[in-house]
């Protein structure tokens, strides 16, 4: 079936009138019968070009250099792996460029690894690419060519790109010889400077017009061929194309399917693969070693002829190694790590603060302006308290999200993120989290919403979900005002041993407590609800490189926009829901109706007697009193807790309304005094320190943040995980508060 001459053209050659194939659909002319399923998406519309490559080869920078500003971010069909696509405008035609997730191989054991093969072959709802552009790191050509070779085995139309040529010194591979390995074009580029990009565009255009297939003269043993060919007949119809393609796909299935994979494949295909594998075992054939070994042998042999001069080993350690000697040093490495993490934490915690303040002021200003401008009505309340408040709840996260995306982007691009995973693996491993979870966990101390978004650095869906489920347990900054109020109101300002102030000690204890519980929760969840196969650590520590600020900024804009639209809608809807809960039904007998106080801080006019206890939320609080009694809460605290389910800091304003304070906006002082003065019918204080402790434990563990739920929904594309998150955290909170309060009473502390 090798109908195509193996012509190697240098990338610089002008677009020649094709001498090989000129039929526009030549790529499919080999197929016995073109499959409508696969062809439909690309015929009639723009040709699809897929950008493939190993991780850390500068794929995204190249993607941006090729497409300009138009990228859209979405997900691959059926899986939450980020998929970026954009218009690729060429001289004579327009194509759609899709950025595939970085991968070392097409082989897979999990659905997220399966994305690579599905995207390359157009399976499972992906459009079938008319061309695959493979980006190759010139400094790690052997390993990078492995992926290109796999793609060539499918005889996909390919264009190869050699990048990082500036890092290899004298060991310069010749693009035309590298392309000749698979009978395709190869172009050398430097996307940061833009060198070679016009050549690449020309090569892509030429390849799209010619539709020349790649080819690779690689032979496995006859035994491997026999095992492989027995699988081909069992491939699902939608997966089949021409003979070469089906053979390569059979080989893929033979290597990928195992006893413990999580692939989404046909049952009969799975059965025949496992059958052939045991057959191979019986014959004493080491399938994986034979196939992978043959591929590497081919690459090693052919690559020798691809260099201008005999490949001389670079003398001495490179600057990555010299940097690593410091940055991964037992003492200096850890010191530097702590410093970087302190900066990250500090920036989220306090540098974002002014911007958050401006946003909050702007929202308050808008709310007050609208309240003053329009006569009291239901519509006004909906707009002011529901919609403006809800939009405020979304945009208030922007400063931290933008900052964290910026920092995470810089950490990733520079190559340090992989080092964080390397340094912290030992710490997090015991809990079942992976090393890369460290940054989201730390960010969770500022706010869970950006922290959950930053889990995107993890490749495995199960690792991401596990991290997302425990990050909200970390003591975020929204819990601080609540802790401050409760500690100030209910605990004496005395000192332990006359030295350490008890109030400060409590604050530290709450941080330690939440971190410990988060690690514990990860351990338990990882063994129960988010079970997954243990996947051993296999981490590449890429070379250090200067981050590309433009690439990072573009990534920030895309992801932020996506957050606003997708998570934002959910947060807005939940805010309106909370508003209804806390302001309806309206009180009957108030004089100037309409301005029913709610959780919002906008009580303008002279406030009527608060009527929150008549609302659904208030009634719910009353109804729940018997349930929360064992935690030491009365109905007032229960209403406050219900209000806090929209966002924790709302606890303070809700509680203010419950206690009938008309201004609780900034100073929590009057509320503090009221709480201290509150007594039970028997005259004892209603809120002894034990109740304060129980309440703080509840706040530490309960999932009182609609925005977190909204963003988990957005990131997992499923209601299952946010519901689970809410349920497990709230149950945990109830149980822990119960133990604290009842235990404390048994010890005679109540």
């Amino acid at each position: 079936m090798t109908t195509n001459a193996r012509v190697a053209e240098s990338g610089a050659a002008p677009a020649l009138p094709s001498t090989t194939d000129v039929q526009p659909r030549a790529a499919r002319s080999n197929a016995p019968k073109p499959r409508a399923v696969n062809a439909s998406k690309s015929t009639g519309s723009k040709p699809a070009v897929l950008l493939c490559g190993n991780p850390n080869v500068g794929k995204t920078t190249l993607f941006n250099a090729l497409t300009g500003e138009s990228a859209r971010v979405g997900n691959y069909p059926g899986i939450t792996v980020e998929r970026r696509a954009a218009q690729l405008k060429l001289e004579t035609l327009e194509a759609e460029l899709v950025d595939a997730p970085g991968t070392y191989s097409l082989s897979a054991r999990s659905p997220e690894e399966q994305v690579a093969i599905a995207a390359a072959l157009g399976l499972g709802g992906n459009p079938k690419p008319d061309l695959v552009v493979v980006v190759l790191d010139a400094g790690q050509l052997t390993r990078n060519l492995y992926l290109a070779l796999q793609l060539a085995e499918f005889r996909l139309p390919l264009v190869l790109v050699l990048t990082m040529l500036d890092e290899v010194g004298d060991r310069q591979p010749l693009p035309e010889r590298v392309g000749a390995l698979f009978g395709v074009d190869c172009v050398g580029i430097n996307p940061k400077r833009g060198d070679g990009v016009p050549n690449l565009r020309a090569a892509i255009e030429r390849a799209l017009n010619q539709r020349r297939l790649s080819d690779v003269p690689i032979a496995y043993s006859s035994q491997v061929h026999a095992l492989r060919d027995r699988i081909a007949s069992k491939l699902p119809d939608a997966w089949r194309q021409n003979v070469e393609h089906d053979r390569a796909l059979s080989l893929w299935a033979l290597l990928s399917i195992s006893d413990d994979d999580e692939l989404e494949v046909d049952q009969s295909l799975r059965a025949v693969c496992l059958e052939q594998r045991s057959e191979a075992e019986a014959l004493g054939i080491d399938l994986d070693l034979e196939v992978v070994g043959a591929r590497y042998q081919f690459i090693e042999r052919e690559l020798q002829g691809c260099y201008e001069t005999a490949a001389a080993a670079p003398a001495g350690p490179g600057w990555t190694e010299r940097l690593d000697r410091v940055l991964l040093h037992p003492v200096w490495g850890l010191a530097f790590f702590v410093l970087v993490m302190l900066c990250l934490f500090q920036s989220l915690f306090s540098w974002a603060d002014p911007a958050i303040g401006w946003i909050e002021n702007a929202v308050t200003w808008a709310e007050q302006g609208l309240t003053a401008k329009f006569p009291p009505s239901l519509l006004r309340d909906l707009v002011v308290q529901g919609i403006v408040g809800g939009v405020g709840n979304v945009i208030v996260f922007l400063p931290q999200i933008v900052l964290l995306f910026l920092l995470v982007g810089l950490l990733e691009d520079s190559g340090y993120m992989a080092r964080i995973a390397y340094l912290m693996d030992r710490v997090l491993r015991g809990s079942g989290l992976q090393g890369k979870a460290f940054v989201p966990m730390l960010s969770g101390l500022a706010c869970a919403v950006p922290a959950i978004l930053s889990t995107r650095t993890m490749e495995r869906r199960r690792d991401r979900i596990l991290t997302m489920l425990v990050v909200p347990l970390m003591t975020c900054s929204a819990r601080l005002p609540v802790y401050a109020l409760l500690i100030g109101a209910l605990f004496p300002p005395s000192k332990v041993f006359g030295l350490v102030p008890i109030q400060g000690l409590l604050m530290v204890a709450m941080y330690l407590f939440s971190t410990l519980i988060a690690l514990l929760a990860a351990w338990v969840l990882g063994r129960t609800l988010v079970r997954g196969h243990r996947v051993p650590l296999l981490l590449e520590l890429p070379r250090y490189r200067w981050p590309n600020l433009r690439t990072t900024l573009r990534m920030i804009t895309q992801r932020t926009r996506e957050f606003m639209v997708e998570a934002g809608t959910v947060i807005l809807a939940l805010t309106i829901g909370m508003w209804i809960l806390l302001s309806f039904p309206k009180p009957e007998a108030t004089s100037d109706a309409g301005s029913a106080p709610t959780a919002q801080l906008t009580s303008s006019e002279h406030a009527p007697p608060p009527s929150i206890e008549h609302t659904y939320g208030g009634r719910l609080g009353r109804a729940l009193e018997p349930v929360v009694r064992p935690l030491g809460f009365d109905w007032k605290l229960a209403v406050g807790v219900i209000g806090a389910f929209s966002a924790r800091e709302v606890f303070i304003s809700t509680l203010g309304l419950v206690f009938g304070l008309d201004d609780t906006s900034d100073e929590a002082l009057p509320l503090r005094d009221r709480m201290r003065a509150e007594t039970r019918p028997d005259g004892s204080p209603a809120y002894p320190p034990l109740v304060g402790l129980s309440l703080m434990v509840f706040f530490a563990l309960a999932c009182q943040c609609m925005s977190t739920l909204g963003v988990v929904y957005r990131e997992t594309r499923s209601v299952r995980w946010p519901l689970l998150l809410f349920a497990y955290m709230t149950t945990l909170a109830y149980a822990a508060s119960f133990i604290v309060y009842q235990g404390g009473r048994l010890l005679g502390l109540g």
Partner: protein
Amino acid sequence: MTLNELPVGASAVILRVGGQQSFRRRLLELGLLPGTEVQLLRVAPLGDPLELWARDCNLSIRKQEAELLHIEPRTGARAQ
């Protein structure tokens, strides 16, 4: 001898790769094949994982998985 027993800084040639199918395949596909030269660059500050140098790449695996790589130490010649 397995890779976890190699002294830091020393080089070796891989003789055999063991382990479960999917992880073993990943090791092989990253080029850790019998005959490939590896160097143990360092151990992480907290005692695990290890950092290796093979085929112009820095890779990190845990000690537990390093036991899957059977090696023959090289005397004298250092890896590139």
